[in-house]
């Protein structure tokens, strides 16, 4: 609870900074309060408090996911120092981002379907606005509008599903629903299954899993790069945290019924994402498609529901968020230079040795090459699927992971090629270099000692 207060305090302070004219101090203040929120997250660990009539349940699962998201947001703030400082809309951006993080935290810790819906909506509405925030750029307007129209539709599905589940079980509370389901799991009303299906569709949209992924490439590409970075890290992590929490606590008893549906979604996302990513020449669009593929991998953790799913998902989400933030540091510099094509990276390693090294390691990690964090995330998720009997899904995942190595390495190869005509000078400011350093340490350490994060749950 204190975490939520601290996070929203950043937003309130941001609005006050406009009124009371301390905009100059807003950036350090927001970094500091985010650190406080991280400390509060740590203090919440292993207490398992249920807040306000069991609306929010901060078990270790929620705490660890909140921790990942707070760390990612901190890195996000550090990476966007130049973008935020001096921007006339700094206060707006800071406020919306911190409220979005609050929504994400609610999604990780919800214990009531109403809280789930509110969390999803807070996060989504913030993202619609931020996607459209570059008003002079038509593509940004398009991204915001597209995201808003489709997202509102998906929220409708989610809400309809919640209403149907409520109708069938008579409760919004996760514990009561799961009790009801385990008591009557042989003769659940058909309305319940319809509700589960609708909820799955709504959440699959939010995580951009195929066949609900059509918005993702355009929205990711059109949005201003800092917000694309936020979308592909915090938003995705939060949506998966909510997905697994809901399905593992409430619907696990009827998993034989919905797991084939999600398995097909997962396989489709992996294949579609990987194959489409192969054809991209723009790094931002490539990351959007790889985000679809990664949604497929993470969905596998939900499909193969066993006692290791949550640790596998945590490890994967952490590795993915951290690596993405690092890679988006590069993309945001490319956006500033006005060229997001992969070919513009030629000669990059000559000028920026350290960033090139870090990006290479991150690409290896996200492609799943041992001994980096991404490998263990993938390993845990694939092993879970095999253990649960989804051999075909694991085969598809390995195949798509092999394809993904190809396009991730395409970026690495481009960086180490000699400079061509269209080579662009990219400069990393100290904050971004620090982010890259931290990210490198995290990816290597999590790869060597994955237990650091998996034992927390």
């Amino acid at each position, binding site marked *: 609870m204190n975490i939520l207060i601290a996070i929203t305090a950043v937003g309130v302070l941001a609005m006050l900074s406009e009124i009371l004219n301390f905009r100059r101090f807003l950036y350090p203040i927001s970094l500091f309060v985010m650190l406080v929120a991280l400390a509060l997250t740590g203090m919440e660990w292993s207490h398992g408090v249920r807040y306000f009539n069991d609306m929010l349940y901060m078990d270790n699962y929620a705490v660890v996911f909140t921790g990942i998201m707070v760390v990612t947001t901190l890195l996000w703030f550090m990476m966007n120092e130049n973008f935020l400082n001096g921007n006339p809309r700094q206060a707006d951006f800071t406020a919306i981002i911190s409220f979005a993080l609050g*929504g994400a935290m609610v999604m990780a810790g919800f214990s009531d379907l109403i809280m789930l819906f509110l969390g999803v909506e807070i996060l989504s509405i913030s993202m619609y606005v931020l996607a459209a925030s570059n008003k002079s750029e038509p593509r940004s307007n398009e991204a915001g509008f597209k995201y808003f129209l489709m997202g509102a539709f998906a929220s409708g599905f989610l809400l309809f599903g919640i209403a*149907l589940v409520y109708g*069938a079980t008579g409760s919004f509370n996760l514990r009561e629903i799961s009790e009801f389901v385990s008591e009557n799991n042989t003769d659940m009303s058909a309305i319940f299954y319809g509700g589960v299906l609708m909820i799955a569709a709504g959440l699959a949209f939010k995580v951009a899993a195929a066949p609900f992924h059509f918005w993702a490439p355009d929205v990711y590409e059109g949005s201003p790069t800092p917000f694309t970075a936020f979308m592909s890290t915090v938003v995705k992590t939060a949506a998966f945290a909510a997905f697994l929490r809901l399905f593992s606590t409430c619907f696990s008893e009827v998993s034989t019924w919905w797991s084939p549906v999600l398995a097909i979604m997962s396989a489709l996302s992996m294949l579609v994402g990987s194959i489409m990513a192969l054809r991209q020449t723009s790094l931002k669009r490539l990351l959007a498609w790889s985000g679809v593929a990664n949604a497929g991998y993470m969905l596998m953790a939900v499909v193969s529901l066993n006692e290791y799913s949550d640790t596998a998902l945590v490890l994967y989400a952490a590795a993915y968020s951290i690596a993405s933030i690092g890679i988006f540091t590069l993309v945001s510099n490319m956006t500033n230079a006005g060229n997001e094509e992969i070919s513009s990276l030629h000669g990059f390693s000559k000028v920026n040795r350290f960033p090139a090294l870090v990006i290479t390691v991150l690409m290896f990690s996200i492609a799943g090459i041992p001994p980096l964090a991404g490998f263990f995330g993938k390993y845990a998720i694939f092993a879970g699927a095999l253990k649960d009997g989804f051999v075909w899904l694991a085969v598809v995942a390995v195949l798509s992971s092999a394809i993904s190595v190809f396009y991730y390495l395409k970026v690495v190869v481009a960086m180490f090629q000699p400079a061509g005509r269209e080579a662009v000078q990219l400069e990393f400011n100290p904050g971004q270099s620090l982010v890259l350093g931290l990210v490198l340490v995290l990816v290597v350490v999590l790869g060597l000692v994955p237990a650091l994060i998996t034992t927390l749950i």
Partner: protein
Amino acid sequence: MSQYLFYILSLLTAFSAMMVVFSRKPVYSVLYMIFCFFTIAGHYILLNAQFLAAVHVIVYSGAIMVLFLYVIMMLNLNKESEPHKSNIAKTAAVVSGGLLLMVLVSVFKSADGLAINPAFDSQIGMVEVLGMVLYEKYLLPFEVSALLFLTAMIGATMLGKKEGGAQS
């Protein structure tokens, strides 16, 4: 009596909802939508949820629909110039919409076993009861929805505000 009322209202709701989609002029769509909202408010009253009905009329039929009408008139959208979608998109829409309809119809058809609570409290939709529930059990969602509206408000002002020498 209330059963007949229910059927009449349902018929009107379904009819107006379909007319929202089928009318060619956007203004007609909006007017049918207002009508649809009123009939839904009628359903709420049948369920003894007066507060919900009042809020529904005020917020949806009142505020939101006036806003819709205003936007349509401002942007002068009242033309039959809707671009035609490609046949593939139309077929896909029909197939997926039909599948959804099939799933939902079959779900509601086999929706037995929903025990109707015999101890139904007829006062449950009244403002007093609602207030007690809202400020006791659902206090946190109530507060968190403030966060939601604050976000939406900041977003709306940010997108609406003129950019003064903006970098962006």
